[in-house]
């Protein structure tokens, strides 16, 4: 149904709508750009901290020490109970002897078992968790097990990283909601003004028998042009910001490598443009649905 000259016409109408409403369109483009850039920045940060957290389990295993007086069977029993706990991913047994050997190796000294009166190490289970944010409750559960001497874990780091991840995600989500609502409002308003400015055209389209979809399309395209341009601007902005950040953090590559979102600039572009176009389409549809309803031509004319 849509031939080439119709498409050309629709695009021309959408562009002329933007030109007619220049100031508002520019404001809408900038709002969309800022919203998309900030949202994308939050998204990248949230992804980076999330990925950092995912790598935490290996680095933040728990060490469960078994009481010295426990018999061999009782030690094995502790291991069995550990494996049954929720959120426990992997349990590895390290005997007193192995632990002692390792300890000495780490010290790098050549003291043999014979040199000391007794082996100070305890039988140990190294426990890794599937959900590091559950460390607190898992630790409590483990402490209550019989023959468990103590549990050692790097509580502070885990709490910090899972907390950070949660804060970044929550703050990001809130900010995104506010920014997107603002964008929808401003783009929607631009389209509303566009509909008002073109009410004569709309009235004539209706009376000569243009399809409803055809009447709506220029406004839909207008919204998508606004947010699409906004997305391109946002990408440019992020490119600059990324370059600047990588210069500033040149000396801290061990840290920056730890916080890697794992997505490329091209993936980000695709997502941002996709989200941008949907944002525009959504905003203009809201206005179209509200202000372009089949009403009287008189109302459309005046």
């Amino acid at each position, binding site marked *: 149904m849509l031939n080439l000259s119709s498409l050309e016409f629709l695009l021309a109408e959408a562009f002329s709508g933007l030109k007619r409403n220049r100031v508002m369109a520019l404001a809408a483009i900038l709002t969309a750009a800022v919203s998309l850039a900030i949202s994308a920045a939050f998204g990248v940060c949230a992804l980076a901290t999330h990925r950092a957290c995912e790598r935490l389990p290996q680095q933040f295993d728990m060490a469960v020490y078994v009481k010295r007086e426990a018999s061999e069977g009782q030690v094995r029993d502790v291991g069995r109970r550990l494996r049954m706990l929720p959120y426990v991913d992997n349990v590895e047994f390290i005997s007193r002897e192995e632990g002692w050997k390792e300890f000495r190796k780490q010290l790098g000294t050549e003291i043999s078992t014979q040199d000391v009166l007794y082996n100070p190490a305890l039988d140990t289970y190294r426990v890794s968790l599937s959900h590091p944010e559950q460390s607190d409750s898992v630790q409590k559960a483990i402490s209550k097990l019989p023959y468990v001497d103590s549990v050692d874990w790097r509580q502070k780091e885990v709490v910090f990283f899972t907390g950070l991840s949660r804060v970044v995600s929550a703050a990001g989500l809130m900010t995104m909601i506010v920014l997107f609502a603002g964008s929808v409002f401003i783009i929607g308003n631009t389209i509303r003004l566009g509909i008002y400015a073109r009410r004569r055209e709309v009235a004539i389209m209706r*009376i000569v*028998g243009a399809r409803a979809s055809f009447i709506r399309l220029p406004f839909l395209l207008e919204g998508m042009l606004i947010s699409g341009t906004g997305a391109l601007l946002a990408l440019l902005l992020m490119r600059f910001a990324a370059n600047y950040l990588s210069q500033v953090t040149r000396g801290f590559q061990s840290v920056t490598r730890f916080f890697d979102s794992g997505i490329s600039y091209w993936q980000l572009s695709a997502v941002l443009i996709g989200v941008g176009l949907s944002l525009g389409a959504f905003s203009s549809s809201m206005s179209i649905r509200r202000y372009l309803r089949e009403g009287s031509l008189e109302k459309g004319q005046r």
Partner: protein
Amino acid sequence: MIDFRNVTLIYPNGIPALRHINLRVGKGEFVFVVGPTGTGKSSLLKLIYREEKPTEGEVMVNGENVAAIPDHSVWQLRRHIGVIFQDFRLLPDRTVWENIAFALRVTGVSGRQIRRRIPEFLELVGLSTRPDALPAQLSGGEQQRTAIARALALDPPILLADEPTGNLDPDTSWEIMQLLERINLRGATVLVATHDSEMVNRMRKRVVALNNAVIVRDEQKASYHAQPV
């Protein structure tokens, strides 16, 4: 072609614009709908192009109950009906040519077809020399001719004219009427709502007279004498 079956139209504010209207208009007829202002002439036309729906009764166009057409299909009905108004409703920032082209573009006519058809319709309405004029540069009669060309550009079998000469002087009105008659002779069914009795009397066509929302008279080759109000 057009068939009103016991049609009543009451606006949401409670004003009855039309009451128990029975009216048949055959293919190729030329009909004046006359009566004082506020008697329901415009409302009667609006029921035909589905700008309003009857409160009671049925309006049939081409054997189809107009009120039963779903909203998303009304465009099909509208392409069968050309409508012109007292205030012309031209787009002020577009030329004569562009105004006509607009109607064709938005109904999916190709650019080649548009370039072929517009000169033909400009010729028909007598505007061949002014395609590049803006509405503000035209006389009222020329503006109405542009509106007529736009209404005809999709070759609708029905042409509705709501007070087409209301803003025009008698000579120009007469020219527009003759143009409408020519369009009628080409095969279109034409309904003209007007209270211009002088013109109605000169034309000697079928006259449907409305008063207070009801049809008070329906005669062939009739005249019309506006009652003193």
